């Protein structure tokens, strides 16, 4: 293979380098041969700016930018680059679940960190292993990168390179740009000893979580402002970002015990206090979701956050209504039909001898009659799927459900899920002040859950006009108003009580499900309390909303 011309992915030299790279890890893998990086390729390909190499841990495809490697004069390092990427697949992190767990831990220690350090962490682990046999090749990649970058680099990268100098027994400043040494000496006294101590401690730790806490406690010194951290390091962004399922597993507790143990040991060793890292308690799931998604780019953030929040609320909903929807057995055949002639080939069981004797008398034996039994179909009323309209108050008196647990939202989701699991349909009306958000009729839980996660956060202005409109449209719906004492204030407005009465008259049932004082609620709603289609359900504390919603769903929709 020529050292100057970039090879094609089909080059025989590539296949040989790939074989050698697999041999570095001495494991049997089923990875496809590497592909050449091409800008703008499919969705699974890297989106960053001109990567050197990366592995897509979803498709387990290694991709190498031969052209960039050639420009850096590091084509001779192909085996090491391949081995590096294979290392992410076979060992560090192997699964993105670990990457997600470490990112959650990282956000706990360094709030507002813009770019995760986990990739650097995994690279340190991979390069130690690959460097046992191919240190010089890896060093050539870093030298080539620095040459292309003109020698200017960040303190973080200088320290990172000093670690490799110590690890691979290289002379000082053989990787770190000579021009940066003085700056580093002045700004970070003892940084070389720091790198040496790091190497001699980090690689001797046996638990990956403890290694990570030690890594963060050391590297934080070289990050002047975590909220602005953005680094470009060869092979420094080659592990993809964990997806929402990976993070969701962490929120459900995956790796949290190991993280707590690691933090405990780090506290004992003084790593956290000495480095100035924040020692925060484990956050509630919604805060964790907020921390994870805060640093994501805007468009990706909203969808990612909503998906994770939705999964979290689903678990909360399931705590109250996990019962599987009942499977209705087909109705039994019990109703006799008319008598017909029995013929050879028909089932003898279908012969109705009583009917035959009554019809044919002594000739019954030669001319039997049969009668089928028909299923007893339930009445159309019983077959009705419940249609439930949920009016959810999302005024500023309750938190945004995406950042803190909003028990009213949860209650609305429980009602919606209960109806849908009973083969019903749900319409959500999320209101505050201003025009309410109205969904179409929803047939699946996920859609309903996500819709009901919406939030306005303004004042409270119950949409009586909408209640009237929907009551006209569908008089068989069950309507549930989920609110607090603000609803009582709304209902005192001129004309509001009349519209409420209209809504009650044109609903199968209308439930005011309120977190409010009972006496005040009874007094305000006195004009409608005796209406047979109205129910007042009072919740005494916000923490009881969810259980009350489950009980209400059982009472209204049937257990």
């Amino acid at each position, binding site marked *: 293979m020529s050292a100057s011309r970039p090879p094609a992915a089909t080059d025989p030299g590539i296949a040989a380098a790939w074989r050698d790279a697999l041999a570095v890890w001495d494991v049997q893998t089923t990875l496809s041969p590497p592909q050449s990086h091409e800008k703008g390729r499919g969705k699974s390909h890297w989106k960053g700016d001109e990567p050197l190499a990366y592995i897509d841990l979803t498709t387990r495809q290694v991709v190498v930018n031969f052209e960039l490697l050639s420009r850096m004069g590091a084509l001779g390092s192909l085996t090491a680059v391949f081995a590096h990427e294979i290392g992410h697949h076979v060992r560090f992190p192997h699964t993105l679940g670990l990457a997600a767990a470490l990112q959650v831990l990282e956000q706990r220690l360094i709030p507002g960190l813009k770019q995760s350090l986990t990739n650097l962490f995994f690279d340190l682990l991979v390069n130690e292993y690959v460097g046992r046999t191919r240190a010089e090749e890896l060093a050539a990649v870093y030298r080539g990168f620095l040459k292309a970058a003109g020698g200017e680099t960040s303190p973080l990268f200088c320290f990172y390179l000093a670690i490799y100098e110590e690890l691979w027994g290289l002379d000082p400043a053989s990787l770190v740009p000579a021009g940066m040494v003085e700056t580093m000496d002045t700004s970070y006294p003892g940084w070389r000893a720091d790198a040496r101590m790091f*190497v001699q401690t980090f690689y001797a730790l046996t638990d990956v979580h403890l290694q990570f806490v030690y890594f963060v406690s050391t590297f934080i010194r070289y990050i002047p402002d975590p909220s602005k951290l953005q680094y470009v390091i060869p092979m420094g962004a080659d592990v993809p970002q964990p997806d929402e399922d990976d993070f969701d597993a962490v929120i459900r507790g995956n790796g949290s015990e190991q993280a707590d143990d690691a933090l405990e040991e780090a506290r004992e060793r003084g790593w956290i206090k000495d*480095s100035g890292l924040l020692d925060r308690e484990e956050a509630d799931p919604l805060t964790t979701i907020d921390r994870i998604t805060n640093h994501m780019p805007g468009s990706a953030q909203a969808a990612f956050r909503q998906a994770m929040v939705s999964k979290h609320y689903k678990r909360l909903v399931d705590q109250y209504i996990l019962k599987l929807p009942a499977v209705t057995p087909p109705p039994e055949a019990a109703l006799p039909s008319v008598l017909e002639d029995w013929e050879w080939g028909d089932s003898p069981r279908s012969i109705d001898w009583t009917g035959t004797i009554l019809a044919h008398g002594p000739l019954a034996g030669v001319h039997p009659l049969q009668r089928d039994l028909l299923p007893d179909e339930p009445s159309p009323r019983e077959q009705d799927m419940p249609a439930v309209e949920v009016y959810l108050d999302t005024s500023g008196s309750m938190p945004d459900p995406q950042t803190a647990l909003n028990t009213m939202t949860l209650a609305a989701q429980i009602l919606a899920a209960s109806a849908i699991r009973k083969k019903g349909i749900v319409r959500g009306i999320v209101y505050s002040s201003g025009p309410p958000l109205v969904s179409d009729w929803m047939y699946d839980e996920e859609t309903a859950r996500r819709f009901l996660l919406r939030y306005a956060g303004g004042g409270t202005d119950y949409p009586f006009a909408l209640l009237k409109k929907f009551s006209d449209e569908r008089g068989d719906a069950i309507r549930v108003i989920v609110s607090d004492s603000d609803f009582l204030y709304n209902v005192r407005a001129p004309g509001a009580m009349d519209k409420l009465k209209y809504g009650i008259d044109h609903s199968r049932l209308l439930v005011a499900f309120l977190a409010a004082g009972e006496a005040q609620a009874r007094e305000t709603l006195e004009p409608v309390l005796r209406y047979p289609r109205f129910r007042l359900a009072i919740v005494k504390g916000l923490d009881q909303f969810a259980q009350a919603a489950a009980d209400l769903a059982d009472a209204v929709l049937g257990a």
Partner: protein
Amino acid sequence: MPFDIKRIRSEAQAAPLPSPYPHDLAVAIVNDTLRMAGLAPPSSKKWKQAPLKGKGKLHEEQMGMLAHLLATTSLRDESVSAIDRARFDAPRALGAFFEAVAPLTAEMIRANAFRQEEFLRRWIEAVGGSVAGESAKDSKKRLEQLDYRKTLAEYDRAEKARQAEAARRAKLLQEAADREAAARGWRE
């Protein structure tokens, strides 16, 4: 015969240390090694005096680890081969060895690959041996690189700087955390 550090380390890994060696037992194992090399071991009295007595409180731990490595790996046989009876001065060589490994704890020697390698190399240096596959220059360079006393002395500067920066960093991170919490906040 040169010492094969890799082999000794893998033998040590295969022989976990169930409990620390009593000091008297450790002394006996080192004495046995010297006897096997054809040397008269230091007397009990000499073991209680400098330089064999060691200086630090970690001395007994280090003796225990040395005894463990001698008893469970090929370090003893290779040491016996390496010791030059005519020139070896046990009190001086052992004294220099304990001086060089002074800051190493038993846990470091047991669990940290770098510290274990340093400990072994210091012992090899003390008995006048060489390391397989390395020139004397390479071995010296590696030993300098592994020198924990030197690292600690230099690291002290980094540690002091880190601690001086810690308060400022903690404030910066706390402010970031407060900003995050404020962004999540909701009107009561």
